[in-house]
């Protein structure tokens, strides 16, 4: 049981209307893995990530979290989740960090971090707050707990979003280009928090355009192109000795 994958995606397909955006993607993240997903714009990185917590409904394929597969059913030829409660239960421990932070503006920093533990997981307020304060310290926001999101810089907002995920003690963390919306001088403060988490052997899937960072923290790199995994492997191989011409070109273009 212990080496059961945290996340397993098997032959994932996703269509939007008639356009197939994912054409059979498989990946496995074991506990402690940091899977970096790279690829050009429109290659399907976000869609793949969003299928993992069912923000997008797969058209075909199988996704399991800690060995538990989402129960799906087919209605008029379209897949849909068969068990909403199961989806909610699994989602509660798959923390997602969005490109645009998506903090809740009507709650303070502390309120954002305690929201899910208290109102989804049923943790007692005092306990949730104590834990929230601890994770806020971790991301360097210990002194901002009573601030409103709108009073924070982009980097601080994203660190708050990461704290919000840490507070649910996630099975795995899903990052969708967490630094793409940030001013260049704010990127590093967020990357260094993610780097810390990676070094703690937290399981994560990280969609990113930061190649140097991916090379540095990833245990496994996936290069998506046009809805397929064109090449994958350890970071030294993907960045040091890419085989596919498209990957070679992609790495040159972003370097």
């Amino acid at each position, binding site marked *: 049981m212990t080496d059961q994958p945290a996340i397993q995606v098997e032959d994932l397909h996703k269509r939007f209307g008639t356009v197939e955006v994912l054409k059979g993607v498989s990946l496995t993240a074991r506990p402690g893995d940091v899977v970096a997903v790279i690829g050009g714009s429109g290659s399907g990185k976000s869609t793949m990530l969003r299928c993992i917590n069912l923000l997008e409904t797969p058209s075909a394929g199988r996704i399991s979290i800690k060995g538990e597969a989402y129960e799906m059913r087919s209605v008029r030829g379209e897949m849909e989740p068969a068990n909403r409660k199961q989806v909610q239960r*699994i989602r509660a421990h798959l923390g997602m960090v969005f490109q645009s932070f998506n*903090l809740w503006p009507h709650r303070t920093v502390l309120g954002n971090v305690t929201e899910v533990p208290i109102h989804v997981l049923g943790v007692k307020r005092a306990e949730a707050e104590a834990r929230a304060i601890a994770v806020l310290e971790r991301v360097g926001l210990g002194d901002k707990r009573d601030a409103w999101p709108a009073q924070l810089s982009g980097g601080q907002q994203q660190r708050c979003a990461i704290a919000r995920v840490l507070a649910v003690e996630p099975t795995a963390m899903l990052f969708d280009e967490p630094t793409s919306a940030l001013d260049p001088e704010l990127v590093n403060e967020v990357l260094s928090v993610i780097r810390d988490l990676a070094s703690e052997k937290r399981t994560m899937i990280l969609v990113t355009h930061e190649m140097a960072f991916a090379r540095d923290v990833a245990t496994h790199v996936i290069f998506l192109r046009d809805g397929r995994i064109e090449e994958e492997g350890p970071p030294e191989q993907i960045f040091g000795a890419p085989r596919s011409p498209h990957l070679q070109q992609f790495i040159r273009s972003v370097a």
Partner: protein
Amino acid sequence: MLDGIDFSLLALDSPGWGGALLEGFLVSIQLAAGGYLLGLAIGICGAVAKLYGGRVTRDLAEIYTIVIRAVPELVLMLLFYYVGTDLANRAMQAMGYSGFDIDGLTAGILVIGLVQGGYATEVIRGAIRAVPHGQIEAAQAFGMAPLKVLRRVTLPAATPHAIPGMANLWMIATKDTALLAVIGFSELTLVTRQAASATRAYFLFFLAAGALYLLLTLVSNLGLRLFEKRARRGLAEVR
């Protein structure tokens, strides 16, 4: 100009009409507040139906708002009042309750609430659509159940956007109560008319009624401003 006005007519006790006026005012406030809250509840349901409902619920909500906004309020009120109470009474009789009569205040609140609900639906729908979708998606991504997302994220985040429109509706609700005078509700306007014609002191009583409506508006404005400030916490400072 105020010469010859007999202010003693406003005395609280008979033969003064002050007490009756205040009672009418109280009825007006109850009608307005009840109707407004009902309208708010209908508005939330209507907005949710329009935004997230299936085809049938969406169409029903659409028809409701179109009718409410197209037909003059007085006509709607007469319609709801007479047709509504008639239907309610017949339904009660059919179920074996005889001699049942829906009480006036409840009927008035229902009538105002149904009209308010049509406008509130549009105000709240617009406010919900102004909430960035990512905020709602974040709640869903954390496994929050749909109703909880609505209660804890969507509606609170929409509130600042809804306040100007809903404040307007409150003002309209207070004044719509006057239309109920036509149906015979002893609210402020009707009592004022009775007092005025009984004493011939038209100027005095309509002035007094106007002052009471104004007072209500001023006090509500104050309350609304406090509420708005609270709802906009977190938005106000930066930007």
